[in-house]
């Protein structure tokens, strides 16, 4: 009886697996065929799309009847053409083609497609800036806003890319967004829109993490209109906010009044001392040369490293480093000076 059971178990499993093998062989065979057809379609239709994008014709090419093939081919070709051009007019034609050929399909996918199809659709809606789907994306976001997954994040990114004001409102309201995601969203929103939305009053009300990220982002844009705001937060009571304001100044490579930096050289927090050195180097503030040189004897490696980099950027930096390497009484400062003198990058 037991033997029979064992034999039957193994045989049944083997039969099931053989069935799976046969089914996978068929699907692999189909996949290979589909890939070949897609490659042929792409090669065949690309020139016609190029004519349309470059405005040589006003007609879009005739596409394969199968909905999935049509979508795959169109996505691939439009992506390819997007990568190849930076011409604004051609980009608009790509957008038009996407709206005409893909919008209805994507709307259906956002409503009824499976998870990966929805996320893929969101990627392409963003890439092709399909404004007609702005509300459909927002509606999807409303359904998934409490999920912590790629679909929620991509809904927000797509909303921001489509310049939907509701994306900025979400940045301000949500406390659970990661720094990277906040940056992703800020990167997509146009600077004018951002300045209009993020007023001084609104900044005051932002959660600490969001405010810190916004300040760092301001520096990355290099937009001088935000510089006074960044400098204002150098005296904020919250350490993280001050650090991001300092980091922002490193990107600006500028500070309106170098005296504002002086307190940070003696900060109790090594991160602030490190950023003071970095700002000094980035903005080439020679009047802080002594302070930054003394930071090369700091107990924290990162501060010494930033100080050495800063000294190297200042006037006569090379000579100063040579002096430290030869004559400093602090072995750590000597090591760091030597490292800075010999290493590249």
């Amino acid at each position: 009886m037991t033997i029979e059971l064992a034999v039957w178990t193994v045989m049944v499993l083997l039969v099931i697996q053989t069935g799976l093998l046969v089914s996978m062989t068929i699907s692999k065979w189909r996949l290979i065929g589909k890939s070949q057809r897609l490659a042929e379609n792409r090669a065949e239709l690309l020139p016609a799309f190029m004519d349309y994008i470059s405005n040589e014709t006003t007609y879009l090419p005739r596409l394969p009847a199968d909905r999935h093939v049509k979508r795959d081919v169109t996505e691939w070709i439009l992506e390819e053409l997007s990568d190849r051009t930076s011409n604004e007019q051609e980009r608009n034609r790509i957008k038009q083609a996407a709206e005409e050929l893909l919008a209805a399909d994507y709307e259906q996918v956002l409503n009824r497609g499976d998870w990966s199809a929805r996320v893929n659709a969101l990627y392409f809606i963003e890439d092709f800036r399909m404004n007609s789907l702005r509300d459909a994306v927002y509606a999807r976001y409303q359904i998934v806003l409490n999920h912590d997954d790629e679909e929620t994040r991509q809904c927000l990114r797509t909303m921001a890319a489509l310049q939907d004001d509701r994306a900025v409102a979400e940045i301000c309201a949500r406390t659970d967004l990661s720094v990277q995601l906040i940056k992703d969203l800020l990167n997509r929103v146009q600077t004018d829109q951002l300045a209009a939305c993020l007023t001084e009053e609104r900044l005051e009300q932002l959660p600490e993490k969001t405010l810190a990220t916004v300040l760092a982002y301001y520096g990355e844009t290099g937009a001088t209109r935000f510089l006074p705001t960044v400098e204002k937060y150098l005296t904020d009571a919250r350490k993280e906010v001050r650090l991001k304001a300092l980091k922002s100044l490193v990107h600006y490579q500028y500070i309106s009044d170098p005296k504002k930096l002086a307190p940070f050289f003696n900060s109790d927090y090594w991160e602030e001392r490190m950023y003071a050195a970095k700002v000094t180097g980035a903005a080439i503030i020679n009047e802080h040369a002594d302070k930054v040189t003394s930071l090369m004897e700091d107990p924290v490696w990162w501060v010494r490293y930033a100080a050495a980099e800063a000294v190297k950027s200042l006037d006569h930096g090379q000579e100063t480093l040579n002096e430290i390497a030869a004559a400093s009484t602090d072995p750590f400062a000597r090591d760091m000076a030597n490292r800075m003198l010999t290493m590249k990058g």
Partner: protein
Amino acid sequence: MENWLMYAAEAAVWFVVAYMIAVSLLYVGLFLTAVPKIRRERKLNRKEQIEELSFHKDTYPLSILVPAYNEEVGITTSIRSLLSVHYPEYEVIVINDGSKDATAEKVIHEFAMTKVTYSVRKHMTTEAVTAVYQSELFPQLFLLEKENGGKADALNAGINFSRYPYFAAIDADSVLEEDALLKTMKPIIDSNGKVTVTGGTVRIANGCEIDGSVIKRISLPKKPLEIMQIIEYFRGFLIGRLGFSRANMLLIVSGAFGVFEKSRVIQVGGYDTGTVGEDMELIVRIHRSLRDEQSSQRIEYIQDPVCWTEAPSSAKVLRAQRVRWQRGLAETLFKHKKMIFNPAYGRLGMISMPYYLFVELLSAVFELLGYVIILFGIFYFAETNTELIVMIFFATVLYGSLLSSFAVLLEEWTYHKYEDIKSLYVLYLCALTESFWYRPLTVFYRINGLIAFFKKSPAWGDMQRRGLAGKELKREE
């Protein structure tokens, strides 16, 4: 006397059969845990998913550590592969752990390295670093020359030297896919640092066509021994690790490729130089520290294949590798024995650690017992009790061959990396033969590993390399 033997054999048979069925069911359970995620993300556009990270200023900069000991054959291929990965800001640090061959000379010559003065933080004490070189051609490439201290010691020296907040540890015989770092860092970035370690799926490169440092065509090797290792990797990575990762119980991030938060590794004391299983031991220690701190950080595994490594192509080298793995596992479990069945460590103590003890470590003993019973039975009870032999034979087939052939099907369902139908059949049919030759072979090697654990013989894991690049096949045995 014969009756007594008969009873003992019967009891042993039932024990081994029950064990094998239980483990098979556990694998099925792990698979079922992993399947919703695999199914959901199966058709996700991976390129779009990571496109932005490749130029984003906030993608954390990363140090890639490559410990090398007698790796003159493959080291330049690996470095070239690392220098061509897509990632915004990273450095590559090759740590030559006192190699006796021309590893350092090859790197210095190939990449125009010049000696630089260095200042290194001593987060961990290591054997002396004797020189540091930087490449004239690629300023982000460094070579540390140090006295021999083992792989863990080399990695610790690399951590001490590294500049960035995250580091990737990669074996010198591995090749990374171009977007491997982006894929592996994505969970860390998306989770806002809640993920402290990520491991990626490692695949075997034997048989693949490699041009320079890039995998151009994925195909199967000719030797059955190499094909069986490919299947074994499917089984381990697709069924086991993803299931454990879903429950934050993953205890192994492959030594071939993993990304770590540097501050966390420094906090737990770096790699343990006293074990040959330094990769697993570190992960267990990190888990312990997360548990002790009640931290919400986690260790995650990504299912995408990101790293290709060279598998042993001869039984001799395979033996050396398996002895080292088994010994490393035993050392880690012994060192952290207090965690096993300790409710204070939650699922880790109650499920994960016992799994590694009873399934990954001791299965070699139980399987050996099964083979002994089959052989013993054939000679002594073939006529009187066929049932015993047949039962254990079928259990062995179920446990070995059927699970592995299932893993082959799973790979085809998810990634279907092998492009032709023939490869699918070759893999499937080879998997069905596993119980009859490959499994007994590896059981024997793993028993050797257990013996080595008790004997405590030294090893760096020296492996005869062929090199992954076609042009580096000169040193074939």
